[in-house]
């Protein structure tokens, strides 16, 4: 099989990245309701999983998942999200690509694991809230005093960051099952998957 990506592959990447991003983005909107804020890391990968699962039925070459992640990162950065998204959006999808490739993009075990890995790209969005903030807090102390800085520190302890990794993984895993079920129910019958 030819392993170079063709124009058709590029178009597929574009279409499914757009679908994934929109599902992700619309789900992310409900995060503005504060109660749901903590659920977002699990909810976004859950909903977007359908698009990803359908995408995988079109992927058979290494690199397509990585390009999808890179595009998501670029798009996030263009819309003004923290630049830390870029290494996350390249690194985790690349790992996912390797895992998926090992299962030839069809093996169910590697699809589950691959989607969990892929979904971790969104951690780049929250990374600056938890890390790279020493200078920020130092100058915050100068400007606003200890209470302010301590409160801000206390509501964002690093363990929440690691908890979010787990939330993402849980949401992604549930999404993978849900997406697969939908694929089976609708798309295979329609001959699309």
């Amino acid at each position, binding site marked *: 099989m030819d392993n170079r*990506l*063709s*124009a*058709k592959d*590029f*178009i*597929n*990447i*574009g*279409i499914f*990245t*757009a*679908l994934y*991003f*929109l*599902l992700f983005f619309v789900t992310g909107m409900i995060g503005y309701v504060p109660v749901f804020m903590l659920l977002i890391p699990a909810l976004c990968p859950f*909903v977007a999983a*359908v*698009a990803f699962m*359908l995408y995988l039925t079109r992927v058979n070459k290494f*690199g397509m998942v990585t*390009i*999808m992640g*890179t*595009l998501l990162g*670029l*798009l996030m*950065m*263009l*819309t*003004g*999200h*923290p*630049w*830390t998204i870029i290494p996350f959006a390249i690194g985790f999808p690349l790992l996912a690509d390797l895992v998926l490739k090992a299962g030839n993009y069809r093996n169910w075990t590697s699809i589950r694991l691959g989607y969990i890995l892929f979904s971790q790209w969104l951690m780049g969005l929250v990374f*600056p*809230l938890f890390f*790279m*903030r020493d*200078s*920020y807090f130092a*100058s*915050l102390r*100068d*400007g*606003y005093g200890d209470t*302010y800085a301590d*409160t*801000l520190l206390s*509501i964002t302890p690093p363990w929440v960051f690691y908890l979010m990794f787990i939330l993402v993984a849980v949401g992604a895993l549930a999404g993978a099952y*849900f997406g697969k079920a*939908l694929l089976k129910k*609708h*798309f295979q019958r*329609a001959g*699309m998957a």
Partner: protein
Amino acid sequence: MELITSANRDLSAFPLDPRTKILLLLCANVVIIGGGFSGTAGIIRALFASFPLFLLLLERKWRAAAFYTLFIGTAMACEILLLQRTAGIWNLLIVIFSGIFSRFVPGLVMGFYVVSTTKISEFIAAMERLRFPPALIIPFAVMMRFFPTVKEESAAIGDAMKMRGIRMGGGNAIAMLEYRVVPLLISTVKIGEELSAAALTRGLGGPGKRTNICEIGFRLRDWTLCAIAVSALLIWMMGGTA
């Protein structure tokens, strides 16, 4: 979604090279996330936070500019006036609002400015000049082209559901997801296949260099803004290490 669909319209009253916009976005991003409240760092942070405001004003996007001013003004006023006088849960809420949001909102508004004033072909032209590989440029172009399509399809599906008396909201959330997302995927994937055939007949993926109708280039205002942004970034970085 307005910010993405409007990327197609030619709205710019103060045209800048897309690369200038991206550079400004990057500098603002690094500085505002990296933070710094006091001394030079504070001034430079304020400078970068004011960039989106000026650019929005130059583009005559009054509403966005007003919202941004209101938001940042409220956040800063909260920090300065209310923080010392409140305690408990109110204090916590103000800290969350002003502390976290003021770090993210200037970047988001800058991003809104960039995507709402740049045409897709301008992005493509800029990416080509910046030597991005075609493996990124082609999917990027398709993706941008696809956002409005997905939005249209989604609205059509919403209408169809309304006619049959199926409404959003009440009922099972998972079922709603299924009703909305499955038809959306089916119709967009189909459109995608047609698009793909159309693009191939027009020579996408063929050998040879593709041309672009958009002329982009640096003008005096681009050089000036880049110079300001880069020097401010350098001062900020030196201030950070010293």
